């Protein structure tokens, strides 16, 4: 079971930074793949019943991932992630910004830093998100919850069809 796996979520309001740490019961290469390959990312990054769809992803320094969070009623929230640094299997950094469907970014965005380490078959991922403003951080949540207004019953029905 995964109940013993560490999950830490801390916010330094003064530094405008969010720190997230999570352990996964899998090897480092596998976890690295899950965070860096579009076909795997699309399977977990959107909290159900939202889904994620990557239009394209070039995982290289200067490359981009352009993807949408799609709500059950079809609303799309597009995001551009630009990779600013990559150290295979251990670290990558990106610049996250919301965008329209034509990839025009709404700046400023936020800086994300991912670190991976493995001990005894458990992989720890540390994520640091620096936001210039709370308003931008607020949009991150908006991206998750857009169109999330259906009744609880609808949600249950939908989940039943998904499972």
């Amino acid at each position, binding site marked *: 079971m*995964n109940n013993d796996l560490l*999950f830490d979520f801390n916010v330094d309001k003064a530094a405008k930074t969010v720190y997230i740490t999570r352990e996964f019961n*899998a090897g480092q290469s596998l*976890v690295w793949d*899950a965070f860096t390959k579009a076909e795997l990312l699309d399977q*977990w990054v959107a*909290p159900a019943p939202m889904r994620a769809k990557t239009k394209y992803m070039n995982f290289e320094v200067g490359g981009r991932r352009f993807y949408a969070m799609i709500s059950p009623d079809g609303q799309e929230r597009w995001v551009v992630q630009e990779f600013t640094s990559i150290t295979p299997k251990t670290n990558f950094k990106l610049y996250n910004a919301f965008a329209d469907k034509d990839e025009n970014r709404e700046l400023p965005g936020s800086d994300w830093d991912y670190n991976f380490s493995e001990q005894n078959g458990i992989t720890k991922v540390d994520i640091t998100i620096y936001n210039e403003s709370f*308003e931008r951080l607020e949009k991150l949540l908006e991206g*998750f919850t857009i169109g999330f207004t259906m009744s609880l019953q609808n949600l249950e029905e939908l989940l039943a069809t998904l499972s």
Partner: protein
Amino acid sequence: MKQDIFQAIADPTRRAILTLIAIQALTPNAMAEKFDMTRQAVSKHIKVLHECELIKPEQSGREIYYHFNAKKMQEFDHWLAQFRQNWETQFNQLDQLLTTIKPQE
């Protein structure tokens, strides 16, 4: 332009003002005295804090006292809790995905 709550809290003087008035409501003059600042500098901080609703004024006689608006801070914390919840949901989804892709390794 609407003030950003992150920007408001990021300033050390404004954090000190919030800490102080969380204990006791103060007039702008009293704040200026306590922080050894000009009345003008205090007014600027008050404006920022007021615009993002972290403090609220209350008239008492001829004086205006500023109170800490704990509700706004709670809203902010509530929002952060939702953000945390989303991450938790995502990571649980990843846990499942990792068990299904594992055999291929």
